[in-house]
């Protein structure tokens, strides 16, 4: 009987193991995806930080726009291939040309003097026939009333995620949805990150926020229907047309129309999500976006996976048929005129660590990858000429490398209010120039960035109007043009400037005391230590002492805000491809101290400010370029920043991934990408054959170890004289 029980126990165990192994499914054992999906037209990628906001009024972070960019459709978008970056229509019929009005609302000619212009009016026509993705907020009952507008407790019991709603519907996109979203930017409960900027420009937005605040107080909570309140600066003209009235001249406003902040939100969707029962289940617009774009978010579990699928109601768009020179040769126009999007489904998996993510890319389970510093040598080899190329291992796998200099800048700012390094005196200017010469950013990029960056020559990165290549683009205060390339001035030049500033050999000529510069930074870990040691060495080259004041990010920000930092490191990523978006970082009225602006260095120069005012409202052309040149020359001379570097993005793509071109402005590029799922399935199977012999070896080794132990056990029992007597289980 006991033997039968024991056999039954073993049989049960074997069945259990068989069941679990069957869960592994067919295909490669290490395939993290279902076998059925292996040859599907699915793009696989990863994310390391869960998105916090997917509501277009709130979302601003780069890890969020990866999703919102594919789902929402603002009126405009950037051309995928053309450079310089060019705005083209997305949901709009055309890129709007603003007209101007005076203070009385009278229309002015296009060439009216700037001082007469009180308002710029943008009239946007939306293409008819665009429809939203299927969504329960659009579902209607037989009486044509919203099906899920007033969910009771019983109905909510069956709802856990958005997919639990049985019915869904759709409707046509109308201009009123865009108007509604602009109103949402002022909603006091939404805390839109661009409300502050937009309140300066969109007529009446500031007052509108106050009106909504009062209405919320009066209403005492619950959903506030914004259609009840008119916004002065935004007018609904007809079903497909709306107007935005902007204070004065603000040509950069057009770029905001390409961001999800200005995407449509239907009022009924807002009302649907505002139901208390849904909010308690975390079913909100912030979690389940609703749009007209090529993709819709079908699974949102940012603790594990986020899945977007092709929007069946997508209005259709075709791959561009023109680009910049070289695009055709690079195969980027091979799909010209074909309908978008190419990919059916997009799966983003959470990968908090870079090592698993990198290894899964090498196994073919991710289609694209960045390169973390610990994988750099495995992926990239740098030639003696400094050229980066793929290693043989990568080439054998058919992986390709695409690089591009980002429209970003990492700089080191001087606090211009500081009595030592700041101010407009010749002494301080030469001191700043000397430090600029001493800090060898070429070396920094080589050591700490694996060559992924270029030394910045001024406030404008490549790709931004006003940036100049070659000799005419170098910063003459830090570089010489030698043998057809820029060469940093020698350390002796830095020492000479320092001596002229009154600090020969790094000592104050009047007091004889060594000059000590303080750098405030958030870097305090082991990685930062190497960087800080390197920085100290750079200052020591011109006999200056650098003291590092490491602090947490909150205190660092506070120091910069109060103007108590002396030297600090910061960066900027372009919102839009206009020089105004970089030069405003040095505009006097934007000073951090007193104005809480973005000018962290508190640089104030009357001539620069005058030129900025003129430049920001000019159309692109020779006059604007000339003014930008003057502004760049002035800040290069004054050196309120050590210009630092423009980071270079390195991305790797498998052979089955096509139509890749870096575009640092567009957020909706997924629709242009194409994959070859059959090639991917074949290569994945080839690369991931299971290797089981080491397991057999381990099993044999274990047996070899256990056999002597078992023999010893028997010997010991014999010695105790209990082996031959029947076992007594009970005491």
């Amino acid at each position, binding site marked *: 009987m006991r033997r039968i029980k024991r056999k039954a126990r073993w049989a049960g165990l074997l069945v259990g193991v068989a*069941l*679990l192994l*069957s*869960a*592994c*499914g067919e295909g490669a*054992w*290490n*395939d*993290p995806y279902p076998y059925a999906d292996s040859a599907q037209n699915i793009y696989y990628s990863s994310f390391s930080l*869960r998105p*916090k*906001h997917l509501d277009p009024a709130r979302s*601003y*972070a780069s890890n969020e726009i990866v999703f919102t960019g594919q789902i929402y459709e603002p009126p405009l978008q950037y051309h995928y291939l053309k450079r310089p970056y060019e705005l083209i229509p997305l949901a709009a019929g055309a890129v709007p040309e603003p007209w101007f009005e005076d203070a009385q609302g009278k229309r002015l000619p296009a060439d009216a003097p700037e001082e007469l212009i009180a308002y710029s009016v943008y009239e946007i026509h939306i293409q008819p026939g665009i429809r939203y993705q299927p969504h329960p907020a659009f579902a209607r009952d037989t009486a044509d009333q919203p099906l899920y507008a007033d969910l009771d407790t019983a109905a909510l019991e069956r709802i856990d995620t958005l997919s639990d709603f049985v019915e869904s519907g759709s409707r046509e996109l109308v201009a009123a949805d865009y108007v509604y979203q602009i109103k949402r930017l002022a909603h*006091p*409960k939404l*805390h839109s*990150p*661009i*409300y*502050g900027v937009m309140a300066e420009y969109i007529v009446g937005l500031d007052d509108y926020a106050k009106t909504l605040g009062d209405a919320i107080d009066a209403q005492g909570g619950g959903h506030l229907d914004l259609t009840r309140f008119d916004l002065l600066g935004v007018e609904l003209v007809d079903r497909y047309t709306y107007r935005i009235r902007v204070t004065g001249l603000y040509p950069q406003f057009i770029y905001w129309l390409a961001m999800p902040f200005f995407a449509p939100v239907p009022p009924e969707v807002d009302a649907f999500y505002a139901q208390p029962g849904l*909010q*308690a*289940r*975390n079913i*909100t617009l912030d979690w389940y976006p609703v749009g007209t774009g090529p993709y819709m978010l079908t699974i949102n579990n940012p603790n*594990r996976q986020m899945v977007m699928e092709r929007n069946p109601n997508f209005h259709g768009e075709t791959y561009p048929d023109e680009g910049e020179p070289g695009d055709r040769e690079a195969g980027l126009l091979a799909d010209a005129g074909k309908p978008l999007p190419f990919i059916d489904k997009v799966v983003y*998996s959470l990968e*908090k*660590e870079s*090592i*698993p*993510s990198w*290894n*899964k890319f090498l*196994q073919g*389970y991710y289609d694209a990858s960045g390169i973390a510093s610990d994988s750099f040598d495995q992926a990239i080899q740098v030639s003696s000429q400094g050229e980066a190329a793929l290693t043989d291992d990568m080439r054998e796998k058919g992986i390709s490398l695409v690089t591009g200099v980002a429209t970003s800048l990492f700089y080191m700012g001087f606090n211009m209010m500081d009595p030592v390094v700041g101010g407009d005196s010749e002494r301080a200017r030469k001191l700043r120039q000397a430090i600029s010469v001493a800090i060898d950013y070429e070396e920094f990029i080589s050591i700490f960035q694996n060559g992924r960056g270029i030394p910045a020559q001024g406030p404008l990165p490549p790709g931004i109007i006003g940036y100049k290549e070659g000799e005419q683009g170098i910063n003459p205060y830090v570089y010489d043009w030698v043998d057809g390339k820029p060469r940093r001035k020698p350390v002796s030049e830095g020492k000479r400037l320092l001596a002229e500033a009154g600090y020969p050999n790094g000592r104050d000529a009047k007091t004889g005391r060594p000059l000590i510069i303080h750098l405030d930074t958030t870097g305090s870990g082991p990685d930062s230590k190497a960087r800080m040691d390197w920085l100290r060495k750079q200052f020591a080259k011109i006999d200056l002492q650098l003291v590092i004041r490491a602090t947490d990010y*909150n205190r660092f*920000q506070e120091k910069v805000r109060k103007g108590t930092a002396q030297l600090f490191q910061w960066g900027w990523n372009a919102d839009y491809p206009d020089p105004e978006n970089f030069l405003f970082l040095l505009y006097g009225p934007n000073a951090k101290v007193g104005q*809480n602006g*973005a000018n962290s260095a508190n640089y104030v120069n009357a001539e620069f400010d005058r030129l900025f005012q003129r430049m920001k409202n000019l159309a692109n052309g020779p006059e604007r370029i000339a003014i930008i040149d003057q502004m760049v020359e002035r800040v290069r001379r004054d050196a309120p920043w050590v210009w630092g570097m423009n980071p270079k993005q390195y991305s790797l793509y498998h052979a089955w991934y096509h139509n890749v071109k870096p575009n640092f402005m567009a957020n909706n590029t997924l629709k242009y990408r194409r994959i070859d799922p059959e090639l991917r399935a074949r290569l994945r199977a080839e690369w*991931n054959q*299971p*290797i*089981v012999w*080491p*397991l057999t070896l381990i099993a044999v080794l274990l047996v070899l170890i256990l056999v002597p*132990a078992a023999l*010893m*056990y028997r010997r*010991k*029992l014999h010695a*105790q*004289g*209990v082996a031959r*007597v029947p076992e*007594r*289980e009970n*005491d």
Partner: protein
Amino acid sequence: MLAYIVRRSLYAIPILIGVNLLTFWLFFVVNSPDDMARMQLGVKHVTAEAIERWKDDQGYNKPLLYNAEASGGDKFINTIFFDKSVSLFMFDFGTADDGRDIGYDIQQRMWPSLMLAIPVFVIGLLVTITFALLMAFFRATYVDYAGVVLCVILMSISALFYIIGGQYLISKLMHLVPISGYDGGLSAFKFLILPVVIGIISGIGAGSRWYRTIFLEEVNKDYVRTARAKGLPERVVLFKHVLKNAMIPILTGVVVTIPLLFMGSLITESFFGIPGLGSYTIDAIRAQDFGIVRAMVFLGSVLYILGLLLTDLSYTLVDPRVRLS
């Protein structure tokens, strides 16, 4: 026993208030409500008015612990501490700074944590106890010496090395299981097998060494000699008599950790992409989300207190001499 449990539960209240106060103080030493607002609103284009609006909306516009402008009890009640703490004792964790319901997120994320933690805990305990008993059985032989050396080696290796080495060897080179990821139901098996095996192996060294010491102390006692004299096989002596009598020190270390299995493992979950609670607190600290931090610290404290209570109760089960009063 019931009176004991009630009394211990009441003792927990001042402890939890103290923990909550300490968490509150430590958090706001580093982060001010203004900092929290900036973190949520982003550093670009943020205005002073936007910060004030965010604080008003989130309830961070009051004094932290003491409201000098209020009168009577409101001096303490009309504060951020009171507002944010009271609901915790009703296990209402409120919402995170991004508006998500914390209780809902905890419910969602605790299951993957348990899927990983329970097998590691149960199988790991069985393996370490068995290994320790074997070492005790083969004491002073080459098996014991080799076992001790192996334990010291296993103890000396960092947990991170096991993870990275395991992923490299088993997943990258041998292609036997996915490197990372997670799925529901039976499909979770292929994702969990490697982290479970790694969790067990990395725990064998320290656990076995500790249990071996306990067992060696027991095997020299008179009752063991008596059992052997009665002719009981060594297997029965060890697994029935020695193990049972060694349970008190084992339970002291083990039962207290059972409720904490809910809290997950930060490093393992992070490297294997398991969507558990392990990284929830760390992510919240990085995001300066006080709502999640206080909820998780509070939950951790409650579970720890529960673990200590369960430990006391477990003593009565294994040792009839123990009475709780």
